[in-house]
């Protein structure tokens, strides 16, 4: 695992996340979300989970980010800039970050280097999905169908 790649990816991801959380212009902030997710996918590549990284790029950068941009374009009348700023939220987020970091640093069994690992092929993932995880897979298929139909029903025009 390359430490220079890790440093570059983490700086880019956290900068894009801060931009998405704080930029006043809604469109610029929304376009930072794909950057964050590409950064997380690069972490997945670095950790050797290539299939999950590819799935993240396809699903989020390909579909969800485009959906978010379309929704902003459809609902942009009204608020163009994001109003208001709440110090309470900043304090809570900082407290959560401080607590998590403190507990991670206190746990010494976490400072380990990655063990040697055999590559996780798509064939292995497919076999595992089709043997041990058949029921969760079917449930997720049912959930995605229900979510698709539910989203369509929600945005359908009501008949007067």
């Amino acid at each position, binding site marked *: 695992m390359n430490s220079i790649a890790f440093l570059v990816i983490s700086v880019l991801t956290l900068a894009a996340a801060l931009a998405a959380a704080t930029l006043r212009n809604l469109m610029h902030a929304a376009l930072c979300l794909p950057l964050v997710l590409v950064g997380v996918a690069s972490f997945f590549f670095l*950790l050797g989970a290539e299939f999950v990284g590819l799935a993240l790029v396809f699903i989020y950068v390909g579909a969800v980010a485009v959906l978010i941009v379309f929704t902003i374009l459809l609902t942009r009348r009204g608020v163009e800039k994001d109003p208001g700023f709440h110090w309470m939220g900043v304090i809570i987020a900082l407290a959560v970050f401080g607590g998590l970091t403190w507990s991670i640093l206190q746990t010494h069994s976490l400072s380990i280097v990655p063990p040697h690992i055999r590559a996780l092929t798509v064939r292995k993932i497919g076999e595992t999905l089709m043997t041990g995880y058949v029921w969760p897979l079917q449930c997720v298929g049912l959930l995605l169908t229900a979510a698709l139909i539910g989203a369509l029903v929600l945005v359908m025009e009501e008949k007067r």
Partner: protein
Amino acid sequence: MTPTLQLFLIISAALFSIGLLAALTRRHAIFILIGIEMMLAAANLNFIAFWRFAPPPHPPTGVMIAIFSIAISAAEAAVGLAMVIAVYRHYRTTNVSQFDQLKG
């Protein structure tokens, strides 16, 4: 020097806190959703990191959970954005402080 598990967990905690910041400080409904997506991405990073750093017999459990979590958060994003559009039709705004019809 290779990055340890601690470093991945701290990056993930930072990403989670930034997502929480977005969800708590923003008043625009879509940006609350974007904050939730960032928190889910941080959780997925944790799953993959713990899978990669686990001791030798490597069942792909963490990878499976990450795949299911990505699928479920895609469904959540689709329904959430549909709700934003439906509420916008009704109220003509996406500012969550103005959705106060149920306020007591």
